[in-house]
């Protein structure tokens, strides 16, 4: 089992959610985060003082899935979220040891 974390532009989220639903991926957990990578800074002003904004609002999606689904999900994310510009985001994959569905106590694949 793997956990895919995708950090994406908020404006792509609705489209990605719909695309994932089409390939049968419904379960996910979503976070409001701030992030920075190569994306350039915007400026902000307070009483004449300049401040640079170097953390941008991003959405992080977390999807736990079977090993074999990983490729498919990643390719959907790339398809929808890639504009080619800096700030498109990143995908990370992590190992998961155990999954339990609370409502049924099912474990492993059955719990997905």
């Amino acid at each position, binding site marked *: 089992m793997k956990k895919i974390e995708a950090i994406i532009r908020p*404006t792509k989220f609705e489209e990605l959610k719909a695309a994932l639903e089409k390939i049968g991926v419904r379960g996910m957990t979503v976070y409001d985060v*701030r992030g920075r990578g190569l994306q350039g800074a915007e400026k902000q002003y307070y009483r004449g003082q300049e401040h640079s904004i170097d953390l941008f609002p991003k959405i992080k999606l977390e999807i736990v899935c079977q090993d074999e689904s990983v490729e498919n999900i990643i390719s959907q994310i790339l398809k929808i979220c890639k504009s080619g510009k800096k700030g498109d985001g990143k995908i990370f994959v992590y190992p998961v040891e155990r999954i339990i569905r609370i409502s049924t106590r099912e474990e492993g694949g059955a719990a997905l």
Partner: protein
Amino acid sequence: MKTKFKWITLLITLAISVPGLPVMAAAADAPAIDTGDTAFIIVCAALVMIMTPGLALFYGGMVRKKNVLGTIMQSFAAMALVSVQWVLIGYTLGFGTDIGHLIGNLQWLGMSGVGIDPNPDYSATIPQSVFAVFQLMFAIITVALISGSFAERMRFPIFIAFVLLWTTLVYDPLAHWVWGVNGWLRNLGALDFAGGTVVHISSGVSGLVACLFLGRRREEGFDAMMPHNLPMTMLGAALLWFGWFGFNAGSALGANGLAGHAFLVTNTCAAVGALSWVGAEWLHHGKPTALGFASGLVAGLVAITPAAGFVSPASSILMGIIVGPLCYYAVSHLKSKFGYDDTLDAFGIHGVGGIFGALATGVLATTAVNPAGVDGLLFGNPHQLLVQLIAVVAAVAFAATATFVILNVLSMFASLRISEDAEEIGLDITQHGEDAYSYMEISSAQR
């Protein structure tokens, strides 16, 4: 720098010369000022003034959080810009001595001569300066209303230019046509107690033209784009309701029975409009929404505005019953049918509601309520409905054409819309360099 100094010198000269005019010279032989009426209209001016911040919140709560300051700033900027324009030239264009039934002359340029003496043409018992500031507040909110139609996408410098051009070229003449002594619509006998035509039809229609001209928001159609702060919108609606008492009751220009009557029917129509809108959506999709309540409330206020001094309480109930579902239909069906992106429904509520109100006034007006008014269709005078129709058509045609021309001209000089990237980031950061909220522990800004 040099030109700036010239400016200042010029203004100093003005500062010297203007008060030289006998602003208060005639104080002794002025017509009798009534302190009650004066107190009333001064306070009403303040009440109408608070409507525009109310509108800023009403609109601001409906946009996404990245655009809230940009939206609020449009209303606030309108307040400042029109305040100056009105003092310099707007008031005299609207209410100066008539030229060709179309516009006022420049007799009160820079408010010279507008002092404590009443101007009996408009209000015999209050200082003219009070009348002028009361009217100013109407000019402010009108142009601010338009901003709801093109919210979330206009560049701020363009907005400034638009406000100045529109208030001068559309509002001031229209106010003169309808309210100015010898204005052609006034001469025709068009009824507009507190600005249904001048304020709501003009702004709503101009909003429609503007949102068509600018085009849809780029994210529209895919994203849900839900209001970011509905309690803010409710507060804004409450301030609108509150200030509208000054708007409508104050339009009696005195603390009298007519003002009391206008207050009563204004409140009634607002209440019924809120209920009938909520009722319509309850029937339609099963939920009575808070935003629907606020929208219906405003629709009711819009509808009663031209009628407040002319119709009975029962008529105000009737108007409220109709205007709620009517405007609900406009924003929920008409808009998606025709596919224009009237972001916050300035047209759907002020345009549609305003047109309805103007025509309903032609039907329901009665001299039993106001002997100085006229009877409408239902009281045996079908002619009045025709007059109202002419006024509506004239206002629609004029506002639409002028707005189109103004935007066209502006678009020759610069792009009206923010860029696609800016739309993604939002008005607040891109136009104003600010972030509305810092609720997170993480400060995204860095020293």
